[in-house]
């Protein structure tokens, strides 16, 4: 079997359960692949992919667009998350129900270069507000959720997944999904452009294994997959949160994140090239990147690999 390294965004979490279950159930092995997971920040993953330090990455989609715009030779080979998982989160008792309520409030994002910040700007604009109406704080990943909990900020624009952490901690939150007004993509499989052209067979086998892994979970194995993830891969995660996670998987991830009308038609990981292009255009419009890259240059539909 080919030994490959896959670098995943952030840290081991039960949200990556399908990949872990795929390994445990021998799906990768069956495709002739032996996989090792390591973890890092999204920007580092893309640099590592470009440099050839790792074989595959699983970063956030926005990071890939920015990387492509800056000429990194990276290719999305499996649009695993069909929509973005960025979201505005506020405590339920704050009275904030949407962007319109943010006037005069304090909002945290992880970076002025982050997609969160872009989502905030677009969200405010659609609600008839602008950055001048709010005050923005920059807080890193390791502290942003606590800053909301501690009341240091009124709202954060961050990942939808944090809703589950907060609820597990007993904090009721209001959430506005950014994807509703700003299409983007969550975790996607990325590889090096050269690797794709030199060894399409390996990439094909890998994306196939990813697809099969997610299919197994979608096919009614949420419970087993979560057990595998919680037992063997994300053991720091409190076990008593399995209920919340099961709900999240069944009500959100399976129906709306991993699957979309497009995947019904072309299979899991299908490339919504138009969606990617729109995402890139908006990033350019808001000056997160200088020029929008062409989506077909860095997004590949899994079905076309090796043909």
């Amino acid at each position, binding site marked *: 079997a080919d030994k490959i390294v896959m670098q995943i965004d952030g840290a081991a979490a039960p949200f990556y359960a399908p990949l872990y279950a795929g390994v445990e159930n021998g799906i990768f092995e069956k495709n002739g692949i032996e996989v090792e997971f390591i973890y890092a920040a999204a*920007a580092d993953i*893309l*640099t590592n992919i*470009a*440099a050839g330090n790792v074989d595959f990455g699983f970063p956030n989609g926005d*990071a890939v667009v*920015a*990387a492509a*715009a*800056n*000429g*990194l030779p990276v290719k999305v080979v499996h649009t695993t998350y069909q929509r973005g998982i960025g979201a505005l989160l506020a405590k339920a008792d704050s009275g904030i129900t949407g962007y319109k309520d943010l006037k005069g409030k304090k909002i945290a994002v992880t*970076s*002025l*270069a*982050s997609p969160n910040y872009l989502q905030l700007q677009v969200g405010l604009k659609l609600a008839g507000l602008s950055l001048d109406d709010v005050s*923005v*704080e*920059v*807080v*890193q*990943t*390791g*502290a942003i959720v*606590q*800053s909301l909990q*501690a009341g*240091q900020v009124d709202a954060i624009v961050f990942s939808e997944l944090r809703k589950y952490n907060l609820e597990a901690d007993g904090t009721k939150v209001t959430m506005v999904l950014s994807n509703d007004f700003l299409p983007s993509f969550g975790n996607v499989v990325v590889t090096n452009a050269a690797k794709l052209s030199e060894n399409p067979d390996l990439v094909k086998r890998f994306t196939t294994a990813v697809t099969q892994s997610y299919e197994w979970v979608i096919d009614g194995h949420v419970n087993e997959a979560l057990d595998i993830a919680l037992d063997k891969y994300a053991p720091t995660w409190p076990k008593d949160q399995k209920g919340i996670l099961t709900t999240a998987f069944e009500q959100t991830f399976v129906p709306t994140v991993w699957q979309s009308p497009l995947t019904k038609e072309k299979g899991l990981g299908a490339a919504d090239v138009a969606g990617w292009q729109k995402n890139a255009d908006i990033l350019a419009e808001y000056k*997160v*990147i200088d020029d929008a890259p062409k989506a077909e240059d860095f997004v590949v539909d899994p079905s076309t690999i090796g043909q």
Partner: protein
Amino acid sequence: MSGRFSAAIDYTLALAVLLFAWWLATGPMGLPTYLLPSPLRTWNALVTIALTGELWRHLGFTLQNIVLGLILGCIAGIAIAYVMTRFPKLAVWLDGPLVILQTAPKIALAPLFIVWFGFGVLSKIVLIFSLVFFPVFVGAVAGFRALDPKMKDLSKLLGLSSIQRFRQIELPAAMPEIFVGLKIGAVQALVGAVLAEWMSGKVGLGYLMTFASATYKTPLLFAAVLMTVVLGLLLHVALTILERRLLSWKGAARG
């Protein structure tokens, strides 16, 4: 003085060699820009932000934090080291917590510093302070401990007051070791300032780095890295000159 002059030559020469190696890696060896931008691209990025004035805003902010944290860390490091060597009984109780606090990796605690001390400059100064304190403290403890017993005899004999004893005998005698701590502390202050800005904030060289890194503006990232290195070098040179002046009585061996 010819010594200082030749030191400047050596530093310049070394920087030239580094620059050449850098150029070699990016030019002939062909490391791509997203891994290591060429010196020229980095220089251009630097000039661009210098001309827009953005650079000076970031640099000024970082420098201000560094200096503030360094001074506070130094004073506290020397003071607590002194108290602990003077009152060894106290050390039994203070040593443990101090070491535990110190060996706790600040990079892991940095996010928590923000929720503990707020978004403002306080959390940054606390972080820098916590990084500077320990090297200076350890250096000063070593210095105060190494005091020649004959000097102790002298101060006892002259019935010096605590302040006289500290100012006139113990502090000057401990200076060489304190400087070791200070030089490490200066580097730590830099690391701390960048780390603090990485954790939160919208200004400073550290912020510039996260921004550049997240947007793959690698030349800008390395321009900011270059600025921190230059800051580090300047701090080091300043401390070395100060050390030379304060410790000239030692007649240190020179080349």
